[in-house]
């Protein structure tokens, strides 16, 4: 890897404490309770490409549709001011910050971070800086933690069409702890370690959701061409993939830049698009035909000095151009390095080359869109190319499902942050502060050691319980059954039962069943029997009263063993157990069997 490579991480973790600025639960049933539609106006203070895109969207009357779910209220639809910050979420975030050895800010002011892609109904995300200046000890040395913020999660995009983006509001407002490191990370593998440790520091609180996207990482990366922030990395393993693909991309752009500069550079502030639709009458190109049938036109422009930098070996400027077109919802982009092709023959290419005045070093760009959009793209693409050739690569990108990073928007700057006037600045209570600091006295790893020791379970089991977000239920079940049994139940029996049933059992139901069985004076063998019965389709409510969970008595066992031995004289201990299990679903104490069987 490049020697100048500098990496930082932002890790986002969802808290299961209830939403941050209203009293809705974090999880709902996804039952849809309504739908509204809204438009967002870019506010005048904004600048940059995203804003231009947003204005463009506004011009197209792009509306956002929002689906309301049963865990939303007026706050999510921006119809009621936010409630005061959820104290449980704050307390969890403070504990995480303390575990990461941060200095906690004693006075907290909530900010608005302007976001106009519709993912927040308000047009901004509420975020609060709660701690700074922490550190994490890793195998490759200390990594500084810049900040811990507590912010609200955004709405989940569920559909996107030309003139409409639809979001589900269930996720909006879930508390997110955002942990940002300094660029102290040395390699992709190191990044994975850091992300894992940060995750652990959060999970150890037991307050992270079990949701599929409960943890998301962003990578900050620089190799001297400006900071790039890569969003949308949900699995640890993708961190490496993302870093490597972005490094390769930047190297490719550096090469392209060198080639183009050598040829005299790219000196346009706009592309001269020519309408070449007439050339495509009766074309064999499906892409072009589709565009024309939708009333679009084909525009061609010469790309100065960019021939064979668009898609040649590992130089792929065409991809960069396509990315920017996509930001304006234009998918139909072709360039000379892939032509002839896509049903466009050589003679057409030649005619276009002539029409656009293409020189020997120049490339050709074809865009299928409306005149109006072409006018906008003309400037946007030129400005993009200019920026890239200057090797000013700083921006926000996302890690796409194609295993590469793609353009998202410019880097947000400090000017996007304003105070959230609806939420009063507040002072962290002494109790919260003390509790957090006490919690932070142990690192996550130390705390897992302690769990292992305190509850008499293996370190591996303790670790699994924490990283599978099972700590709360582990502690809850420990109220009724021995912790070792609780651990076995959680890590083995219940996953097994869930697999059989083909669905997961809610934590509250697990606790209810265990508690109800234990209340009947029965022990963990009956509990396991109970879950076994559940997996065979019994109704949960009936189980605590069921005779099938009552262990076989000494007399019952004696009779059963007598029968079995009669038919199987000389049966061995293991086989005997199996024979008993065949005859009854009720639990029994193997030791009693041994003592009775007298083998």
């Amino acid at each position, binding site marked *: 890897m490049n020697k100048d490579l500098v990496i930082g991480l932002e890790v986002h973790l969802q808290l299961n404490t209830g939403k941050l600025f209203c009293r809705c639960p974090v999880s709902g049933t996804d039952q849809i309770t309504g739908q*509204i*539609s*809204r*438009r*967002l*106006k*870019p*506010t*005048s*203070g904004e600048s940059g490409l995203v804003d231009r895109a947003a204005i463009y969207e506004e011009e197209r009357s792009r*509306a956002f549709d929002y689906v309301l779910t049963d865990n939303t209220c*007026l706050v999510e*639809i*921006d*119809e*009621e*001011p936010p409630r005061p910050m959820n104290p449980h979420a704050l307390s969890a975030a403070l504990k995480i910050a303390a575990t990461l050895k941060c*200095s906690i*800010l004693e*006075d*907290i*002011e909530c*900010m608005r*971070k*302007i976001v*106009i892609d519709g993912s927040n*109904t*308000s*047009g*901004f995300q509420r*975020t*609060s*800086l709660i701690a*700074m*200046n922490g550190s994490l000890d890793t195998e490759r040395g200390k990594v500084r933690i810049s*900040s811990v*913020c507590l912010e609200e999660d955004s709405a989940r995009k569920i559909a996107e069409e030309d003139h409409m983006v639809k979001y589900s509001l269930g996720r909006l407002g879930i508390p997110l702890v955002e942990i940002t490191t300094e660029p102290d990370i040395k390699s992709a593998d190191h990044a994975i370690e850091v992300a894992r440790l940060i995750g652990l520091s959060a999970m150890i609180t037991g307050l992270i959701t079990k949701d599929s996207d409960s943890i998301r990482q962003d990578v900050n990366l620089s190799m001297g061409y400006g900071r790039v922030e890569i969003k949308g990395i949900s699995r640890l393993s993708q961190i490496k993939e993302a870093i490597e693909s972005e490094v390769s991309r930047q190297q490719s752009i550096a090469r392209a830049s060198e080639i183009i500069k050598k040829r005299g550079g790219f000196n346009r502030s706009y592309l001269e698009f020519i309408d070449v639709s007439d050339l495509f009458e009766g074309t064999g190109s499906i892409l072009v035909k589709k565009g024309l049938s939708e009333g679009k036109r084909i525009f061609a422009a010469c790309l100065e000095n960019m021939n064979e930098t668009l898609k040649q070996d590992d130089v792929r400027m065409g991809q960069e151009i396509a990315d920017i077109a996509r930001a304006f919802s234009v998918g139909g982009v072709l360039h000379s390095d892939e032509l002839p092709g896509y049903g466009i023959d050589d003679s057409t290419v030649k005619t276009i080359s002539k029409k656009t005045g293409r020189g020997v070093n120049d490339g050709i760009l074809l865009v299928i869109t409306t005149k109006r959009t072409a006018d906008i793209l003309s400037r946007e693409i030129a400005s993009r190319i200019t920026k890239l050739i200057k090797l000013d690569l700083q921006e926000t990108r996302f890690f796409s499902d194609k295993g590469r990073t793609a353009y998202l928007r410019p880097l*947000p*700057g*400090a*000017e*996007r*942050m*304003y*105070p959230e*006037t609806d939420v009063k*600045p507040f002072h962290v209570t002494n109790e919260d502060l003390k509790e957090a600091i006490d919690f932070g006295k142990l690192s996550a790893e130390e705390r897992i050691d302690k769990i292992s020791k305190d509850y008499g379970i293996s370190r591996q089991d303790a670790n699994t319980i924490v990283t599978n977000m099972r700590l709360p239920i582990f502690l809850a079940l420990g109220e009724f059954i021995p912790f070792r049994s609780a651990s076995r139940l959680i890590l083995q029996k219940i996953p097994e039962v869930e697999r059989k049933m083909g669905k997961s059992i809610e934590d509250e139901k697990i606790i209810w069943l265990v508690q109800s069985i234990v209340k009947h004076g029965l022990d963990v063998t009956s509990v396991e029997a109970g879950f076994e019965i559940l997996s065979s389709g019994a109704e949960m409510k009936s189980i605590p009263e069921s005779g099938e969970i009552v262990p076989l008595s000494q007399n019952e066992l004696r009779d059963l063993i007598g029968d079995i031995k009669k038919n199987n004289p000389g049966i061995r201990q293991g086989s005997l157990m199996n024979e008993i299990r065949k005859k009854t679903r009720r639990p029994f104490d193997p030791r009693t069997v041994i003592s009775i069987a007298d083998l």
Partner: protein
Amino acid sequence: MSGQSLPPSGSKLQIEHDGQELHVTFIKEDSGYGVFKLASGYNVRFPLADVKIIKIYDISQDHRKTMKEETNIGRGAHRISLLSTGGTISSRVDYTTGAVRPTKDLSFIREAISDLEDRINLRTEIIDSILSENMTPSHWIKISHDIKKAMESSEAVVLLHGTDTMSYTASALSFMFEKQTAPVIMTGSQRSSDRPSSDAFENIESSIRFSLENIGEVGICMHANSSDGSAILIRGVRARKMHTSRRDAFKPMGDGEIGRITDRRTFIKNIRKKTDSSIELFDQLDKRCGIFYFTPASTEEELENFSRGKKAVVIMATGLGHVAEALLKKIRDLSDSGIHIVITSQCLNGRVDLDVYASGRNLSASGAIPVEDMLPETAMVKSMYVLKKDPDNFAKLMQSDMRGEITLRSDTVEIR
């Protein structure tokens, strides 16, 4: 920073706090705390006593723009006046201090109405800059003069107003403008215009669309529902703010809906048209009026105390307009002493009717004046007007429809 004098807001500093050095922008002092913006954009708050300024890089100049209080937008034929009185719709967050307050910057209007620039020639003017909870009858009179002036030189008047008391002002203007040559469309917003999600943009755009119609009354234009894309126009005397925070807080009580915009298409109905003749403005109001909210705990004493110094008391009674029998004697006494007792219902929907039950008939006999389906707030404002306009015929005028405040047919629509 204790003992140190504070630099101007916006100054760039290097400070030391809790052993850490930080590069910050100074925002403001807030009861012993210093508020500083970090490079990341986050604000931090430290007790000033704990902060040491190491270096001041850049002392901020006060660069707050001085906005013109008048401006023209559009190149169309229709001359429209937009007057702003303040309220959330013209409030913006001060990005430096974080306070939201009425601003004199109406530049966002230009964005709101870009679609209409070809049709209108909009002249904006700041006539006041207050939140509507501070509006008083004196403000209404001043506003009415400003509107009259605007009406004399334009085809329509759009009035920006805080939502809290917008319906009171709308009622007052409805009565005071006995003849009007132009529509007066009032609008406000529930989200301030500095937010990307503000309803201000659409509300202003819709108000201007309505103002292009032949309307000779005062209406309130706001969101028709929680979604963007449709607006409702409500007769001033029949509008009521029915939610503290939703965009669609304003509801037409009874048959108060006089217009609707859906997908930028305007519909109006049951509207009074502009008059061709000259504007008639009656600009006197008797402020000695109030609303008394009857409850089972109400006593003669409470009513007497409340009525002190008043010329008219609008009672929000229960149901069809009833109050406890225990208050009847007091009502008769007050009535005899020249204080008009006007009966409305705290139900807000429906009509008072003192003929159905004996208790109502007794109340009626005590001199109380039931005012059909008039809203309590409208009844109070109308009392102010009638007390100056024709005090001798107070009861008769209160019980007659003047501006659509009384409707003799009760629509069968659902309750709002």
